[in-house]
């Protein structure tokens, strides 16, 4: 445990160097209209909300870059052999890797807040930052679990969210058992379509659903690391 904690700064550095730069470029490019003033800002506009919505709009892409192949790359490229011949626990190692990815994701978002303050005007997305946390936890955990199983984890993760949304329209959960089952099985992305943490009052059932779904996906990912030997060919 102590050994792994000592290794955490290096894990973080790897993710910042190999993924952070790409994430920053993507975030800047997707926010360019706002940063360059192409999106007119009304005098009475809630600038914080505008910034928050822009950042939330870039989140899915950034989460994909932060977490794709987070386990799978070590397995496919064979890095796991030297790593896990050392006296460390792979489950804790990948938990740390996920935390490092989260820190990188939020660091990029903070840089974007700073950039917005310099180029446009100082603003804080407020409660919308909690939405970003929820997005990372949910989408990141789904990709994390998929990362041990498939190669194109980010694409399949994205597909699961889109499918979940479509299936809820085809089989509304209120109308059939099948609809209820699909709603439980697919990621609850629809709960993030509207603010999960609105100023008017939080629906804690929704928060628990998102958190619970993410926790289960994360636990599945860790269980796969624990119980499926890493040398098993995919």
């Amino acid at each position: 445990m102590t050994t792994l904690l000592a290794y955490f700064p290096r894990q973080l550095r790897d993710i910042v160097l190999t993924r952070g730069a790409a994430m920053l470029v993507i975030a800047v490019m997707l926010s360019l209209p706002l940063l360059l003033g192409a999106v007119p800002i009304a005098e009475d506009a809630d600038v914080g909300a505008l910034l928050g919505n822009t950042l939330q709009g870039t989140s899915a892409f950034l989460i994909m870059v932060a977490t794709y192949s987070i386990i799978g790359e070590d397995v496919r490229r064979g890095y796991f052999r030297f790593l896990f011949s050392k006296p460390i626990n792979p489950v804790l190692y990948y938990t740390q890797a996920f935390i490092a990815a989260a820190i990188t994701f939020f660091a990029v978002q903070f840089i974007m807040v700073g950039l917005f303050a310099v180029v446009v005007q100082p603003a804080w997305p407020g409660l919308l930052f909690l939405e970003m946390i929820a997005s990372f936890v949910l989408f990141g955990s789904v990709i994390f679990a998929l990362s041990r199983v498939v190669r194109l984890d980010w694409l399949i993760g994205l597909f699961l969210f889109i499918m979940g949304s479509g299936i809820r329209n085809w089989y509304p959960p209120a109308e059939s058992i099948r609809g209820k089952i699909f709603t439980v099985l697919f990621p609850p992305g629809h709960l993030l379509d509207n603010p999960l943490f609105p100023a008017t009052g939080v629906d804690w059932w929704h928060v628990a659903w998102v958190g619970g779904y993410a926790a289960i996906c994360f636990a599945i990912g860790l269980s796969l690391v624990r119980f499926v030997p890493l040398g098993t060919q995919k």
Partner: protein
Amino acid sequence: MIEFTSVSKEYKSLIPPRTTEALKDLTLTIERGEVFGIAGPNGAGKTTMIGLALGFLRPNRGTVRIDGDTPRHHVERHGVAYLSELVAIPTWWTVTGALKRYSVLAGVKERDRTRVVGEAIERLGLEEHKSKRVKQLSKGNLQRLGLTQALLSDSDLVVLDEPTHGLDPLWTQRFRDIVVGLRRDDRIIIIASHNLDELERLADNVAILDKGALSRQVSTHRAPSGEIQHYRLVLQGEHDALQAAFPGAERVENARQVMYDVRGGLADLNAGLARFLAEGGQVQAFFPARSRLEAAFMEALGEE
């Protein structure tokens, strides 16, 4: 002690549907203090056997235990000095950076880290490459880096898969010296290699695998004196006393020297040699035509 008990391992693929049996009913024991070799042709199951010993793979049938513990549990508690057949290290890491990282994971204390890494770099002759990125290393230097990271900790289990692959003759010899230096009563050293000469020099016992099965286990220590040996005799020139000294000696065809194959027990061969020299024969060289291991290997594979 490492125990493989009736271990079988299969690889399955869905497209096309196929099952490959990599190991079949393997039972063997490797004792502490032993240097244990694993030999076999390509696809014989050497790397699978190592993967099972490290817990990177799980057997379909049978059990693998290290000191009574499951391999993964043992490795996570104690670590293993492991060099894999393919040295896979992130290519953007520098040599020193990679070794520092692995030393952290190996549990080397922070106050000792710089010294331990420095000594390891010196020991494996990587000083001039220490600032290079992994992607800039040649095959041989990458192999040395792999070996260096394996030897960062004082593990009681050393597993080396094709350790001299890509090494030049100088470093192959140095590697052998390193392995000799690693020998310890409480340590197991496992070496998988195609190179029978290397295993003969380093290992106490060698398991010969063929198509996933343990074909035979050979001790590389001295042969029993009565065992028939196959030697090769190189002469200065033809001599009439040869057939009397070594009945049944066969001339090696197409040899550039005057060379004969002779067979017999060690005592008979010595007596024959003494007689031939006494009769005025001139011998340039007298050496085993095949090592015991090589002979066992060929026999195990059904080759002459």
